[in-house]
C-alpha cells in the first residue's frame, strides 16, 4: 500500500535498467534536498499513519479554523485602527454619518462598508472564531469520552485545556476591539469582574484601563493582546500539542490487528495529506459561506459605545455564555467588612466558578490515574459505555454547561418561548445543582445497561429477528453468534480493578502510613469502577457457545431447523439464485 512507482524504472525487464530522465520538479527537489536535508527529516513523518474515524477529525476543524483566523485576521489589521481617539464618521453608512465615535469603531465601519471584501472577511473572521472554540470543545469531548487523555497523553490534555481558555480570552479581546455598544458592555462586565477581586480589585481595574472605565487605553492594549500576545501563545501551544501528537502516535479504536504497539490506518502521504488538506478547504468553504450569507455582529446597528447606552439582547459570543449565565442567576450577595464590600455576587460566578469548573475537567486524568494506580500506556480507546462513571461525570458537566448557557440567554429564551425571565432564573438556580445529579445517575445506569447488552450479545449472539414457531405453537427468536472480529473488538478492553479498602489497619492495629489518603483512593475506586459490568471470561464465553450449540441441536431434534421460507434472507447466508419457496 502506498508504494510509489519505482523512479529507477522497471528492474525485471528484458533491457538493462536505466534511470529515467529526471523531470524538472524532481531536479528542483533534489537541489533543495541536497542543501536542506528535508527528505531524511520528513521521511518518517510523511509515512506517519492516521487511523480512520470521523471523530479523529474534530481537532482538525479547530486547527483549520485557526488558520482561517490568521489569514482573515492579517487582512483586518491592514485597516483596523486600534485607537480611542474621537473622530467624526464620514464613511458610507448613512445612519451614522457625522456621529462622534472612536477611531476603532470608525475603522471597523470602514472595513465593513468601504474596504472591498472587508465585511466578508470580517464576518469570516468572527465566524471562524466561533467555530475555533466550538471545535476545540467537541474535540475535547471526544478525547474525554474515549479515555484518550490517559497516559502518556495527560500533558497534552492540559495543553488542550489551556488552548480552550486562551481561545476564549482571545475571542473576548477580539469581540471588544470594534468599540461598539456590545463591545463596551462586555468590557464593562470585565471591569466589574476585575473590580470584584477583594482589596486589589479597583487598583487592578485602574491599571487595566489606565484610569477609570472606559478610559482611552483599553482598545490599543487589547489590540496588542489580541494580535500578538495570545495568538503567539496559542500558536506555540498548538505546535506543542501537534508535536506531542506525532510523538505519542495517534490513538485508535480496538479491533483485530490493532494493539497498543501499532497504529492501523493510512499514511500521511498521500492519503491523509489529501484528506486533511481537503478538509482545510471544506472548513474554509463553510466559513466563507457563513461569512457571506449570515450576518454576524452587525456593529453598525449597535452604534458606538457610550457608557450611558445599552441594548436589549446584549449578549457575549456563545463561548462566554456560561460566564454570562453564572452572573445572571447569581443572587445578589454582598458582605461589608471594615467599610469594604466583598461582592460575592460577582466574585463567585465571575472568578471562582469558571476556574473551578475548568480545574475539575483538567484534573480528571490525574485523578483517574491516581485512583487506578495504572502506570501503563494506553493507545487503544475506550468506548464511553465502558467507563460509566467517567462518561456520567462528563455528561453531567455538559448538562451544567448547557443550563448555564441557557441562563445566559434567559431574556432571549423568555421572549422566544413566552416564558418569564425571572422564572427561568429561579429554575436555573436550582437546576444547575439538581440536574447534573440526575443526569449523572441516568447516564451511569445507561452505560451499565449497554455493557450488559454487550455481554448478552457476546454470550448469546445477536437477535436475528427470525421468529420460529414450534410444533406446539410456542414462539422463539433465533439468536446467531456474532462474527469473531466483532467479538474481539467488543472484548478488547481491560477488566476494571476495584481496590477494596477493607483493611485500613494491619493485624497489630497499626494504621498504615498514608492510609487516610488510601481510604479516599479506595472509596473513589469503588465509586468509579465497582458498578461496571466486566466482560465475560473465557469459560463463560465457551459455556455460552456450548449452550448455543446445544440449543441448536435441540432445535434440530424438535424439527425446528427447517429452512423456513424467507428466512434465508437473514443476511447471514448468500442468497444468490435463491427465491421464495412455495
Amino acid at each position, binding site marked *: 500500500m502506498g508504494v510509489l512507482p519505482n523512479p529507477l524504472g522497471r528492474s525485471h525487464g528484458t533491457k538493462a535498467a536505466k534511470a529515467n530522465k529526471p523531470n524538472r520538479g524532481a531536479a528542483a527537489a533534489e537541489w533543495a534536498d541536497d542543501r536542506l536535508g528535508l527528505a531524511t527529516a520528513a521521511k518518517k513523518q510523511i509515512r506517519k499513519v492516521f487511523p480512520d474515524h470521523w471523530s479523529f477529525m474534530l481537532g482538525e476543524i479547530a486547527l483549520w479554523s485557526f488558520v482561517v483566523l490568521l489569514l482573515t485576521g492579517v487582512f483586518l489589521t491592514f485597516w483596523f485602527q486600534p485607537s480611542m481617539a474621537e473622530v467624526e464618521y464620514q464613511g458610507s453608512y448613512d445612519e451614522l454619518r457625522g456621529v462622534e465615535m472612536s477611531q476603532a469603531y470608525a475603522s471597523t465601519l470602514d472595513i465593513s462598508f468601504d474596504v472591498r471584501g472587508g465585511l466578508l472577511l470580517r464576518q469570516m473572521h468572527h465566524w471562524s472564531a466561533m467555530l475555533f472554540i466550538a471545535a476545540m470543545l467537541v474535540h475535547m469531548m471526544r478525547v474525554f469520552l474515549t479515555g484518550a487523555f490517559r497516559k502518556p497523553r495527560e500533558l497534552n490534555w492540559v495543553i488542550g485545556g489551556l488552548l480552550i481558555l486562551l481561545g476564549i480570552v482571545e475571542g473576548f479581546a477580539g469581540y471588544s476591539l470594534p468599540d461598539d455598544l456590545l463591545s463596551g458592555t462586555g468590557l464593562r462586565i470585565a471591569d466589574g469582574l476585575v473590580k470584584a477581586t477583594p482589596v486589589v480589585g479597583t487598583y487592578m481595574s485602574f491599571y487595566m484601563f489606565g484610569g477609570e472605565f472606559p478610559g482611552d487605553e483599553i482598545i490599543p492594549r487589547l489590540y496588542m493582546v489580541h494580535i500578538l500576545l495570545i495568538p503567539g501563545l496559542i500558536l506555540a501551544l498548538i505546535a506543542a500539542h501537534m508535536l506531542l501528537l506525532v510523538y505519542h502516535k495517534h490513538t485508535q479504536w480496538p479491533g483485530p490487528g490493532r494493539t497498543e504497539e501499532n497504529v492501523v490506518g493510512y499514511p500521511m502521504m498521500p492519503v491523509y495529506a489529501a484528506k486533511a488538506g481537503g478538509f482545510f478547504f471544506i472548513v474554509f468553504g463553510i466559513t466563507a459561506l457563513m461569512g457571506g450569507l449570515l450576518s454576524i455582529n452587525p456593529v453598525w446597528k449597535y452604534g458606538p459605545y457610550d457608557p450611558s*447606552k445599552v441594548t436589549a439582547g446584549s449578549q457575549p459570543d456563545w463561548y462566554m455564555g456560561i460566564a454570562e449565565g453564572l452572573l445572571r442567576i447569581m443572587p445578589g450577595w454582598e458582605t461589608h467588612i471594615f467599610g469594604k464590600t466583598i461582592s460575592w455576587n460577582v466574585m463567585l460566578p465571575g472568578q471562582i466558578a469558571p476556574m473551578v469548573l475548568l480545574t475539575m475537567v483538567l484534573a480528571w486524568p490525574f485523578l483517574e490515574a491516581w485512583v487506578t494506580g495504572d502506570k501503563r500506556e494506553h493507545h487503544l480507546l475506550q468506548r464511553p459505555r465502558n467507563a460509566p462513571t467517567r462518561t456520567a461525570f462528563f455528561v453531567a458537566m455538559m448538562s451544567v454547561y448547557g443550563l448555564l448557557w441557557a441562563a445566559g440567554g434567559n431574556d432571549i429564551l423568555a421572549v422566544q418561548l413566552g416564558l418569564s425571565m425571572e422564572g427561568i432564573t429561579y429554575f436555573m438556580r436550582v437546576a444547575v445543582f439538581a440536574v447534573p445529579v440526575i443526569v449523572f445517575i441516568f447516564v451511569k445506569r445507561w452505560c451499565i445497561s449497554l455493557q450488559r447488552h454487550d455481554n448478552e450479545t457476546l454470550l448469546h449472539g445477536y437477535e436475528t429477528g427470525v421468529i420460529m414457531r414450534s410444533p406446539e405453537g410456542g414462539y422463539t427468536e433465533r439468536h446467531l453468534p456474532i462474527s469473531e472480529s466483532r467479538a474481539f473488538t467488543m472484548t478488547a478492553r481491560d477488566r476494571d480493578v476495584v481496590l477494596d479498602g477493607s483493611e485500613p489497619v494491619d493485624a497489630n492495629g497499626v494504621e498504615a502510613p498514608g492510609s487516610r489518603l488510601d481510604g479516599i483512593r479506595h472509596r473513589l475506586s469503588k465509586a468509579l469502577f465497582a458498578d461496571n459490568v466486566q466482560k465475560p471470561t473465557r469459560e463463560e464465553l465457551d459455556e455460552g457457545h456450548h449452550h448455543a450449540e446445544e440449543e441448536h441441536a435441540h432445535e434440530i431434534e424438535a424439527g425446528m431447523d427447517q429452512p423456513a421460507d424467507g428466512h434465508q434472507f437473514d443476511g447471514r447466508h448468500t442468497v444468490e439464485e435463491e427465491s421464495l419457496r412455495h
Partner: protein
Amino acid sequence: MRLLNRSAGRLSRHRRGPLAGLVVLLFGLLLTGGLYAAFSPASAEKTGTDAEQIAEGRKLFLTSCSFCHGQNGEGITTRNGNQLGPSLIGVGGAAVDFQVGTGRMPLVQPGHQTTPKDVTFNDEETAALAAYVQSLGAGPDIPSEALYSTEGLSEEEREELAVRGGQIFLTNCSACHNFEGSGGAMPRGKVAPSLQKTSSKHIYEAMLTGPGEMDNFSNGNIAPEDKKAVIAYLEAIEENPDYGGFGMGGIGPVSEGMYAWLVGIGGCVAFAFWIASHTTRTDKKPQAAGGEADQ
C-alpha cells in the same frame, strides 16, 4: 339563434338534475350581491360633525369598552382595590388610537400584558372612539400626519434626521426594544414588542402616551421633531439592505451562537464523517487489500 336554441336546449336538459336548484340559488345570490355592491352608496359618506362622531364613539364605547372602563370612562375598581380598567379621563385620543388601532383593545381577557391582535374596529370607528375619549378630558390627541411622516423630505434632510434619531433611539429605546427594534424581554414575562411592523403613527403615539410598561416620552422629554427623527431612523434601517446577509432574527449573539453550532460545527462534522467513511480508491484486486491490516 339556432346556436342559442341549441345550447339552451342542452342546458334545459339539466333543469331537473339534482344540482339544478343549488346552481340557480347561487346565481341569484351572486346577482343580488353584485347589484347591491354596484348601486349602494360608496363609503364616500363624510364623517359627520364632531358632535355626531362623539355620539357615535360613545355608542361604541358603551358596547365594547364600558364593561371595564365604566360607563363614563371613569374606570372600575374591584372590591380588593385592583383596577378592572383604568380611568380614561384625560388619557386623550392618541392612546385610544394606539390601543384600538393596533388591536390591543378591546382585551380578549385581562392578563399581564395587552398583546396586539387583529383589529376589531375600522378606522372610522377608532376615530369615533378616540373623539369620545378625547371629549372626556383633554389629553394628547391623535397626531397629525405632518408630525410623524417623513414624506416630502429631501434625501439629505431625511438622512440628517435619521442620524439624529439613531442616537436618540440607542439612548432611549434600544434598552428594551433591542438595537434594531426587534423587541426584548421585560420583567415577569412581559415583552417589549418588535417595532418592525408597527406603523409610524402608532410608534409616535406610543412615545407620546407610554402604553403598558413603556415610559411616557412627552413632548417636553422628546420634542416632536425628535420623535419624528426616531421614526426616520427606524424607517431607514428597515429600508437598508441586509448588509451582512441573513440577520437570523436580529436578536444579537444568541442566534449567532446557535448558527455557529448548528450550521458551522454541524456542517464540519458532517463533512468529517464523509471524509472518514470514504477510504482510498484503489484499482488493486480485493485480495491485495488484505495487506492493509498488517501494517
